[in-house]
């Protein structure tokens, strides 16, 4: 087994093209658990630790066209940086619920995307924000919405020999919420989570649910219906009946399963509560 640690993105892409069987190592918080437990034995490892381009983030464009471009190796701790948290508050809230300081220092947003666990905490946020993932291979670069990139439980649209290089996240102008249910507040994998984004300028609401379906779940009809009934001119007045109906619609949009962490019935109930709570909190902050 070889361990490659290139220092340039081009070299990383070339290495993967030369040997597509290489396992890409980002933070290692998922990969090394599987390796330690003997569940996975990589034929070779391509470590991204020393590729500086993948660790940077920057703002692209301004006003309503502003995006934050996050290098794939951006850690959860970096996402909690106040400058970044001010631009992407729900992503910071989600990052704070991931693991522990040790895990947040190690795990990356690109790794969360590449692993594509249904419980991945950044995924509902990225889907609610209509983020796009940037990919590179020896044959060129392409990008696609995160909602299309994650195709199923631990399944992505990543082609052989292709790397996640960055995520482009639109900067929304309005309150955001991320809420998560687990057995405790730290070191916990989500039983259910929920990201909600309000765009006050466009009078737009987006909500994505995690860990209650094979991929992050949205319901565009429920979003449009709720946005159309919100009293945008008289904030923060909010009809309780509207909040209840929003919760019901989001719960109906979920497709949870029974597993060792929770039952489907509990998860459906949980996302109804989370969706209601997220809307009420975000709206109160307008």
């Amino acid at each position, binding site marked *: 087994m070889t361990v490659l640690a290139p220092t340039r993105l081009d070299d990383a892409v070339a290495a993967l093209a030369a040997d597509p069987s290489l396992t890409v190592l980002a933070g290692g918080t998922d990969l*090394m658990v599987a*390796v*330690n437990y003997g569940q996975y034995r990589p034929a070779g*490892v391509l470590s991204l630790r020393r590729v500086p381009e993948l660790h940077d983030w920057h703002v692209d464009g301004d006003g309503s066209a502003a995006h934050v471009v996050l290098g794939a190796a951006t850690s959860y701790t970096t996402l909690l940086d106040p400058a970044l948290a001010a631009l992407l508050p729900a992503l910071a809230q989600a990052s704070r619920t991931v*693991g522990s*300081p*040790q*895990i947040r220092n190690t795990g990356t947003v690109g790794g969360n995307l590449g692993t594509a666990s249904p419980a991945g905490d950044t995924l509902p946020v990225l889907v609610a924000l209509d983020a796009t993932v940037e990919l590179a291979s020896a044959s060129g670069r392409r990008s696609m919405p995160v909602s299309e990139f994650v195709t199923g439980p631990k399944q992505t649209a990543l082609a052989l020999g292709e790397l996640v290089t960055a995520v482009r996240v639109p900067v929304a102008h309005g309150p955001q919420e991320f809420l998560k249910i687990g057995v405790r507040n730290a*070191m916990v994998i989500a039983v259910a989570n929920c990201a909600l984004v309000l765009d006050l300028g466009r009078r737009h609401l987006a909500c994505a649910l995690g860990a209650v379906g094979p991929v992050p779940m949205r319901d565009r009809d429920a979003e449009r219906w709720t946005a159309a009934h919100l009293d945008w001119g008289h904030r923060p007045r909010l009809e309780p009946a509207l909040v209840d109906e929003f919760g019901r619609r989001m719960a109906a949009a979920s497709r949870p399963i029974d597993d060792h962490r929770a039952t489907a019935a509990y998860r459906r109930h949980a996302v109804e509560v989370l969706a209601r709570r997220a809307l009420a909190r975000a709206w109160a902050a307008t």
Partner: protein
Amino acid sequence: MGGDVTGTTPPATPVRDTDADAVYRLTVNGTAHTVEGTRPTDSLLHVLRDRLGLPGAKNACEQGECGSCSVLVDGVLVCACLELAEAAVGCEITTVEGLTPAGAEPGDAALTGAVLTDVQQAMIEAGGVQCGFCTPGFVVAIHDLLDRVPDPGPLEVREALAGNLCRCTGYGRILAAIEQVVTVRGNGR
């Protein structure tokens, strides 16, 4: 036919590997070490403990849940069990053995482990050490916290130590130890 009673002689053939061909260098506590005879998939934790003779980082969960293997890699607090050892080439690794009291110089008794850091001393005095298994991980995590945030609030301390599990103390005495260090360091400023 005397056996190896000292336990310091490595076995004639590597114990666990099937394709141990990698030779690489790791810098741990300021010293460069040549690592050989490991499995290529070995975690940093295994290499520290089983190859480099640094058993301070403890091996418990091997999935990043317990924090007993906490070390610093390039000054960042991580679980050594989740680091692929060979991917840490070129990094500065600091283990609990490499923590030194403030102001210590190379050659000091402190560097031989004969002098405890203020965090280690406070853990003893406050009763934060019982079985001791989690202690090295806590000590590294507490140093990391107090180096970044000299006077953390109670919630900040709890959140910073959420990745370190202790099944003996109930945490109260560990928190008391931290309070003691913060007070003493604050008086020295």
